[in-house]
């Protein structure tokens, strides 16, 4: 399934997901712009934007092996962590001026330990991300963000005023709003864009200079609003999972006739379903509250399982989803547990549900095809 748009604008987004350094980012660098890598969607990117830099979501795009990372990590570590560390060790992240982590999971937080020992990136920061979502944790993360801002200012010699931070928050909120509009278009019977293409648009939004991305996304929305859409599919699917940044994976699912119409993914709806509150006085507190309390959470956050499950069930209703596919990277404990819990919840509601394990770099395409075909058949599609 491919969406035909005359201007070829969609190609710009897919190019940005297929390469590590997209054309616009290269131009940005060539003009002296700085780029800071972010290892998790809980890194408050707005602070980096406010500093005048481009936040770049870390990936392993283009990685063909993990030989160097395997000297640091074991075979029971997730392939995303190993591929992205490998790219760092082999110098392919040399274009970064800094890298920021949160203590997101057992695999990714250890990348920080190796990075600071072995890779010469000028600025590194690890944020202590709470695992609960109540007021003391909001306050803790407010302090973390404030310290992050201070170190960024000190290291790069920039001043991040409240005014600049609000401007960045507004820009990121605006992008979130545009991305939500893109999802809205998929609610209809003939979504004008496939799931694979949507993921490409979302991934590009973590890799391009944000103002340029927003402009491009506006143009895309305009073109899509005139498009005929995709009426010819066997089932409407929702994809749930963690760090999936490869549209080709969804492409395999869609080749079987299952159109992915919505998701709960790290690079998907969880990034943008809510906005940072612009109606409070302290921008740092606004960010802390957004990241700890307000945004849709991943399974790392304790006390949120019911809300996560409700988020998925609402999506199922709103997007008229016929079945749910939950994917996870092998060795990811958070998504192992979430797949189990969500599966039990959906079983109670009689919603078709398929659990899939995968490696970060796509392999086993034939197996994936067979599983999806069988799933669609069990759904009577």
């Amino acid at each position, binding site marked *: 399934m491919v969406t035909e748009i005359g201007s070829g604008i969609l190609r710009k987004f897919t190019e940005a997901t297929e390469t590590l350094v997209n054309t616009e980012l290269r131009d940005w660098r060539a003009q002296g712009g700085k780029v800071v890598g972010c290892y998790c969607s809980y890194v408050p990117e707005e602070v980096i934007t406010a500093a005048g830099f481009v936040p770049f979501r870390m990936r392993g795009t283009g990685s063909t092996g993990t030989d160097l990372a395997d*000297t*640091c*990590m*074991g*075979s*029971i*570590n*997730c392939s995303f*962590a190993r591929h992205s560390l490998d790219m760092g060790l082999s110098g392919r992240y040399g274009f970064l001026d800094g890298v920021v982590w949160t*203590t997101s*999971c*057992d*695999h990714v*937080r*250890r*990348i*920080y*330990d*190796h990075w600071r*020992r072995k890779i010469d990136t000028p600025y590194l920061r*690890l944020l*202590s*991300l*709470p*695992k*609960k979502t109540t007021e*003391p*944790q909001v306050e*803790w993360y407010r*302090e973390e963000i404030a310290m992050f801002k201070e170190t960024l200012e000190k290291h790069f010699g920039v001043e991040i005023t409240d005014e600049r931070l609000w401007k960045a928050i507004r820009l990121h909120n605006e992008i979130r709003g545009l991305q939500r509009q893109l999802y809205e278009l998929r609610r209809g019977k003939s979504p004008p864009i496939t799931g694979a293409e949507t993921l490409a648009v979302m991934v590009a939004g973590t890799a391009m200079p944000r103002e340029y991305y927003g402009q491009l996304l506006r143009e895309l929305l305009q073109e899509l609003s005139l498009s005929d859409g995709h009426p010819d599919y066997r089932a409407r699917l929702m994809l749930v999972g963690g760090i999936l940044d490869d549209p080709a994976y969804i492409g395999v699912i869609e080749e079987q006739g299952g159109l992915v119409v919505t998701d709960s993914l790290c690079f998907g709806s969880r990034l943008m379903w809510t906005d940072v509150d612009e109606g409070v006085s302290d921008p740092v507190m606004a960010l802390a509250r957004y990241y700890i309390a307000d945004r849709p959470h991943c*399974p*790392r956050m*304790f*006390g949120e*399982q*019911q809300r996560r499950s409700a988020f998925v069930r609402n999506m199922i209703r709103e997007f008229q989803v016929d079945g749910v596919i939950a994917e996870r990277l*092998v*060795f*990811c*404990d*958070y998504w*192992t*547990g*979430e*797949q*189990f*819990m969500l*599966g*039990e919840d959906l079983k109670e509601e009689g919603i078709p549900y398929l659990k899939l394990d995968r490696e970060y770099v796509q392999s086993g395409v034939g197996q994936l095809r067979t599983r999806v075909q069988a799933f669609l058949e069990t759904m009577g599609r």
Partner: protein
Amino acid sequence: MDKRDTSEMVQKGLVRYRQERDWFNFLNGLLAQDPSEESQLSKSITEITVDRYDQIIRCAEEGKPFIAGYFCAAPEIYAAMDLPWYMIMQTPFLAASAPYLLEDIDACERMGLGTDWCTACRLSLYYIEAGLSPPPTAVIGLLHPCDAATVLHQAVVRNKLWRDIPMFCTDPPYFEDERGIGYFANELRRMAAFLEEHTGHKLDIDRLREVCQESNKQYELWIEYSQLRRAVPCPHGWGIGGGQCFAITQVFETGNPRGTQWLRELVANAEKRVREKRGSIPKERIRYFWFDLLPFGWVFEFLPWLETEWGAVMVMEMFGYTPYSPIDTRNEDTMFKGLAKRNLYESPMVRQARGIADYFATDIARVVKDYKIDCVIWPGHMGHKDGAASIGIMKEVCQQLKVPYIHIGLDLFDKRYTTPDECKDKVSKFFSTMGLG
């Protein structure tokens, strides 16, 4: 849920618990047949264990408050509140040698719990999903040291039978500094308030002081004992020592003089053996540091073999390591901060796995130097993803120290993952190649 349902839930939850109690009684009987001082010390521990099982069974049967808690979630507070407690992860931690363990692992696989998820965590969830854990009055859950623990407790909250049982989890900060200590101390205060609200038991600060003071004595004795293990030959092997000290100080007898007395007897026994230059085996040839939990599920099939076949003595292991500092009992604030430090930065596994990887490096360096270690064994439990992600750092520190290092790759509870024979083969080749033994 009506009273009859609750009663059925309690009785079902106690079936496996009683079996475990009986298993320890059986072990107690075996130990009674060996008059050696060391076996009698071990027997005291199994008696203490049985007492704890009986206490929980009584509370459950009589409807008295008891909680599920953790060693690294301030058991000093439970002791001061006179709250009997057990661990949701009790079976894999304490009773993994029980004969039904493999059947239970198979059952949790059938339930659809991911097989690359730590066996200790998925087993524990299986027991709850299957109604085989006694439902407590309240639960203190755990969000550290690993992802698997967080997932386990989220799943417990979701479980139909347990979702009405109130749960509190302390949120762990990542770095070791004053800010983190203050934050975690406040989390412990909130935990104490939660326990007061849901159990009716009150926390008396003077009683907490008594418990902390007594536990300080326990830790002093444990440290003294650890120092005795530096002796060549090491006075004790894998069978007695750190694991039991941990069980006394952090699980069964926290701040209780009965535990302190046991530690005194252990120190006396070790001192005597050091004076007599009597090692745990007739000829100690290799002194190794086992940097993890023991392989509880199949311990008897592997560790005795290391002693008899290779003269290899486990001089130190993760749970026996003693980086502890005493709790300042001057006032409520100093006590809570001391508890925060002890439970977050010092208690075993949590210390190494929760925060930055430096602890892996510094602990290896400290133990290798202090305990005259010939080699470091990183067992590589399939659930310890943060540890696996630190192997490069461990290897490098061992290279700097010029001490051989091996990473096995096993499941501490399921011997089918890497069989004892495969482990023996791997370790034998390592010892031979490194010219050890």
